[in-house]
């Protein structure tokens, strides 16, 4: 028997509230299955399980708020479970799953979920009238007068929680990590037209944005310089086994998340673009998975579309580096003895002096630049 605990989904998470179970005692699960949905400071997160087995006991009921590390469920490992044991498992459950636990996730827009929290209405009790039975804000409003009311949440409380969590993580970063910063202006005179050319040849569903090329260039540079890809824990640097680039995604309601694109160095641009599109859409629909929030090995942030020239980002602990991209804009550029107009971007690196120094940081930025000069290698 093993415990399945509330995972830590980053330095800015302290606790979470169980909002849905997708399994019940006796259900067989395999590694990677989404077994629950937990409301965190980063929104509702699909929680994946990390081993095969059979659910023996649901420990935390829907509505309960528990700290990171608290046991959520107990699991019998696949290697030790027989079919007969699996069938008998429900009898072993001490705490049954709450009646509100749904077989599948409630389809509800973030706006409707927020409204439901404000009105103290349980979305699971509402019959949705939106696409695919999704619960809409109108459904919530209509239900508010008919359903029993829970304690209404304070408006903006979720955003306040996220802001508080981000503040705590960033304060810890500034307190503990001796940052250094470097910046380099990179000529995109080859990359920008190459992306346009690619997009002319690609169907609309497979078009690229320049940001995905930035992610790929960073991932490939990390292969050459793994000291920027990993974690500072227990007083030492631990390089990460994979290159999982966290990408900072702003949420329209406020706040941000930085879920990971797994193995970004091993995927071609088309694959990475599809996964990036999916990640952004799910982040903004508050449908991220626990592994995406927990696995980032470096973070990339881009504020260029908001008109920012340069970004001076703060490392997301326990990571040891963060890369920022500013606006892609036409600037005067010296090439072959002439001043020409070129699309350029300023790339910045914030890195941890306990692990690297400015010399290595400069080499890392140079490696990113090299990849951006040779888009065919991306």
């Amino acid at each position, binding site marked *: 028997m093993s415990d399945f605990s509330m995972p830590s989904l980053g330095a800015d998470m302290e606790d979470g509230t169980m909002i849905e179970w997708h399994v019940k005692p006796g259900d067989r699960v395999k590694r990677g299955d989404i077994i629950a949905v937990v409301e965190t400071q980063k929104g509702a997160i699909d929680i994946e399980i990390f081993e095969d087995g059979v659910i023996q006991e649901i420990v935390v009921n829907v509505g309960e708020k528990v700290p990171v590390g608290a046991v959520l469920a107990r699991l019998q490992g696949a290697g030790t479970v027989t079919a007969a044991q699996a069938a008998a498992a429900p009898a072993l459950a001490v705490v049954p799953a709450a009646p509100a636990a749904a077989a599948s996730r409630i389809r509800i*827009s973030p706006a409707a979920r927020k409204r439901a929290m404000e009105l103290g209405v349980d979305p699971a009790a509402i019959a949705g009238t939106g696409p695919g039975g999704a619960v809409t804000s109108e459904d919530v409003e209509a239900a508010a007068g008919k359903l029993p009311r829970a304690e209404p949440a304070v408006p903006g409380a979720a955003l306040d929680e996220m802001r508080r969590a981000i503040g705590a993580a960033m304060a810890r970063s500034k307190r503990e990590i001796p940052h250094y910063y470097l910046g380099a202006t990179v000529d995109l005179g080859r990359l920008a037209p190459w992306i346009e050319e690619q997009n002319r040849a690609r169907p609309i569903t497979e078009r690229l944005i320049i940001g995905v090329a930035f992610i790929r260039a960073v991932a490939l540079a990390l292969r050459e310089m793994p000291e920027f890809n990993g974690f500072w824990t227990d007083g030492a640097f631990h390089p990460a086994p994979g290159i999982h680039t966290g990408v900072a995604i702003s949420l329209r*309601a406020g706040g941000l998340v930085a879920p990971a694109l797994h193995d970004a160095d091993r995927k071609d641009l088309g694959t990475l673009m599809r996964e990036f599109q999916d990640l952004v859409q799910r982040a903004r629909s508050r449908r991220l998975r626990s592994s995406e929030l927990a696995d980032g090995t470096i973070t990339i942030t881009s504020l260029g*579309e908001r008109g920012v020239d340069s970004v001076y980002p703060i490392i997301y602990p326990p990571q040891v580096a963060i890369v920022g991209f500013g606006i892609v804009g036409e600037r005067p550029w010296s090439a072959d003895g002439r001043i020409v107009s070129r699309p350029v971007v300023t790339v910045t690196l914030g890195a941890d002096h306990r692990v690297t120094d400015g010399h290595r940081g400069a080499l890392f930025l140079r490696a990113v630049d090299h990849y951006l000069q040779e888009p065919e290698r991306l």
Partner: protein
Amino acid sequence: MNAAEIRAAVINALTSVAPDIEPGTIRAEINFRDQFDFDSMDFLNFVTALHHKFGIDIPEADYPRLMNLDGCADYVSKNSA
């Protein structure tokens, strides 16, 4: 599709990409970027949703015509079968 149906379908595409947009709050003449903080990824997802919904191909050169609800409705009515 008549003009009202096209407009409703465009709004549907918009909210499928950005579920936190309340249809009743959309201002037809205001740029999506200014109104909803759209970035290039949101916009690409929106254009892709229009492609799926109306079966039209949208070259990148036409993107400036799709910056707000009025522009989208006009573009779709002129380009869909």
